[in-house]
């Protein structure tokens, strides 16, 4: 997978990803235009399908709002690569079939606009200046859920089979 990097700093909290005042909009699609507005109000309109979000440590900290990963997926980001993730966000991302990769050292190695390559076979990120960054494989249980397209699809199949 290859994509254009959009780079954010550390401690991106879920209030930045989607501020509370937009949380009663009826759909995630409608919330998308306000994504990251406290920090980068122009960002939502400039994301292209297949872009890759790169960030520092503790991405997605704060509230449990699941609209955060849903919006990132809906905006068209192919994945989020960060130094580390907050745990509720990490779970919510995989639940929604959004690929999230913890990659130590990545924040300093990528500039906004860089075209970076994610090699899922060898668990490596390649940057334009020749940088190579390894990451741990995703646990099988989570990989299976990603494969199924998220938790909703997983249970849809299960419940359909049972009925």
């Amino acid at each position, binding site marked *: 997978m290859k994509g254009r990097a959009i780079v954010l700093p550390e*401690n991106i909290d879920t209030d930045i990803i989607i501020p509370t005042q937009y949380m009663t909009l009826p759909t995630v699609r409608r919330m998308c235009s306000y994504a990251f507005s406290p*920090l980068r109000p122009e960002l939502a309109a400039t994301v292209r399908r297949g872009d890759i979000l790169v960030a520092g440590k503790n991405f997605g900290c704060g509230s*449990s709002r699941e609209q955060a990963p849903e919006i990132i997926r809906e905006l068209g980001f192919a994945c989020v690569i960060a130094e580390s993730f907050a745990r509720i966000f990490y779970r919510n991302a995989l639940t929604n079939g959004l690929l999230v990769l913890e990659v130590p050292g990545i924040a300093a190695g990528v500039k906004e606009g860089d075209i970076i390559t994610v090699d899922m076979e060898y668990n490596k990120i390649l940057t334009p200046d020749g940088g190579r960054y390894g990451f741990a494989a995703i646990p099988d*249980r989570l990989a299976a859920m990603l494969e199924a397209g998220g*938790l909703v699809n997983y*249970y*849809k199949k299960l419940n359909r089979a049972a009925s």
Partner: protein
Amino acid sequence: MKHTLSQKILIRHTEERGLQSGDIVETAVDRVMIHDFFTPFCFGKFNEMGFSRVWDPDKIVLVYDHLVPTSFISDSRHHKIGDEFARAHGITHVHRADGVCHQLMPEHGYVKSGDIVLGTDSHTVTYGALGALATGIGYTEMAAVLGTGKIWLKAAPTIRLEIDGELPRGVYAKDVILCVMQRLGADGSSYKVLEFGGSCVRDMSQDQRFTLSNMSVEAGAKAGLIEPDEKTLDYLRERCDGANIDGLKSDEGAAYDRVVEINARDLKPLAACPYNVDNVKPVEDLEGVQIDQVFLGSCTNGRLEDLKVAAEIIGGKKIHPDVRFIVVPASRSIYMQAVRLGYIQALAEAGAIINHPSCGLCAGRSNGILTNGERIVSTNNRNFLGRMGDDRVEIYLASPATAAAAALAGKITSPLTYL
């Protein structure tokens, strides 16, 4: 094999006697809570997944608190969808205007020591103060739990906080947890459990313990546990049947990820400065910072003791004429007690705005939202960009005493000025 408290709770639920840190286990769940922000999403996903009935209506609690009273026309949709789901599935534990979910769950006896409890809100960790393994999850995972009564959890390593000694005058549980934020950082307990112990924690009231556990998620913690004791039992016996704390403590010699020691005697009043919870400074270094508003409330510090401290500082005085002082008791029951004890009268006579129990300003969409250039001293748990209105409102998180002192002075000042 020796285990920490959080591991023991997992073992009781799974019979995995050899459980180790990092193991992923599927576990039964004792109680779940869904709040109004997420009712449309959670119940929508439940239906989409193809479930026809919930696993156990008695174990499900719905709380309307983030959108109470409604501020926008679209808010009522969340309550309507909640009500329809509750009716369809025979869920009777529905709180429509009783207060903040994390106060109601313990207060109404929905949580016991040793339970595994999940909520759609990150501050579900609050119930760790009763010795329950409680954590926040997303609404899709909650939808699956509603259908199955089960979830997978990873046995996390534990950071032990050993907090000893007596708190100095003017220093409270809020200052202790702000010190913890300063020491650990906003991701210092990511994927880990915090365990609070030591003589200072044992001496704390149940109200104060809730403040500690509540903010453990601000360091990224999965749970914030306190070993239950006689005080916990007294609290629980008034509220539910079958409370039992036997064996609910970490084994002597259990392996901790690390142990952090804090000497309570050395603590001072602290505040978390904009825009991160770990940007913590002593209040004395912030002396004189002008403020526009004060908020006393939330699941962190909207309890009876918090109102009492503020009423004692403010009683008989007038708040600063340039300051709006907003008070929101965390539950209806706290509100009524505070009325009987005269706290509400003292605060209202001093010039406070008293609002009905709810998340209020901490949910950031009603009841006192601010504009850029304004500053607030608040007793809640988060001071992120855009948390209380415009994107550059400056939020200083502090104890109820420091908040009350700021309301009188119109600026940040040590609570010791008024104690």
